[in-house]
């Protein structure tokens, strides 16, 4: 058996962190648009956010296993990549549905475009990139990666904490729009929680 390729294993390790950080960045951007531009996410937008969170969660699973084992078994790696792929494909289907809902010419689309494209179109690109990243990860991961020790230091811990903070922020933002209702409205126009609590201007 060949000696393990340190470079490719390092790329996989780097890819796990980059994946979570990119998802955190995209979701933070969506939160910024929700609060700074006062745009409310619809149900499909929320489903896309959840799919992105699931993509990040699968990669966080890998980090958590590295924390305990200090290495990555092939079985764990393939399991996490499969989870990521399922979440990304689901998110891509939801984004496509959202795009097709607004594709006819008189329809201006949902929300304000960012750099010429609506957020659900950007979300589709993110999910497509996620699928490509899974493919590349599976392509470059050496068979003997189980023999390679992997580090779990302050950087990995910070990435996990950042991901947890983004999830909490998203839960808060969702609760604000959904309020104490079971479902989000299809076309939300206000923060239901504040409205129900008597803040009629919000």
């Amino acid at each position: 058996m060949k000696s393990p390729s340190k470079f490719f294993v390092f790329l996989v390790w780097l890819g796990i962190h980059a994946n979570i950080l990119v998802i955190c960045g995209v979701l933070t951007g969506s939160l910024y648009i929700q609060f700074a531009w006062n745009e409310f996410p619809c149900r499909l937008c929320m489903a896309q956010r959840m799919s992105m969170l699931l993509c990040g969660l699968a990669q966080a699973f890998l980090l958590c296993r590295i924390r305990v084992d200090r290495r990555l078994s092939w079985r764990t790696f393939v399991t996490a990549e499969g989870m990521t792929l399922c979440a990304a494909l689901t998110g891509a289907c939801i984004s496509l549905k959202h795009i097709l809902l607004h594709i006819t010419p008189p329809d201006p689309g949902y929300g304000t475009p960012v750099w010429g494209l609506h957020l659900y179109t950007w979300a589709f690109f993110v999910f497509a990139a996620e699928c490509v990243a899974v493919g590349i990860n599976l392509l470059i991961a050496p068979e003997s990666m189980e023999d390679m020790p992997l580090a779990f230091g302050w950087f990995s811990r910070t990435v996990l904490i950042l991901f947890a903070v983004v999830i909490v922020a998203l839960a808060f933002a969702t609760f604000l729009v959904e309020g104490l209702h079971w479902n989000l409205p299809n076309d939300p126009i206000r923060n239901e929680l504040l409205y129900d609590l008597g803040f009629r201007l919000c």
Partner: protein
Amino acid sequence: MDTLIVLSILVALALFYFFPKRVFGILLFWAVWIAVVLLVLFHETTPMSLNF
């Protein structure tokens, strides 16, 4: 329901972190995934969304 799903993702992350060898986190992951799929399958489009 959406808030609960997002909070479930947080719980799954905690399960992955504190019980990485157990299967609970993975089970919760798939439960959330199925919930998201069902959420979209039963999503009803409003006339405003289908504004032809």
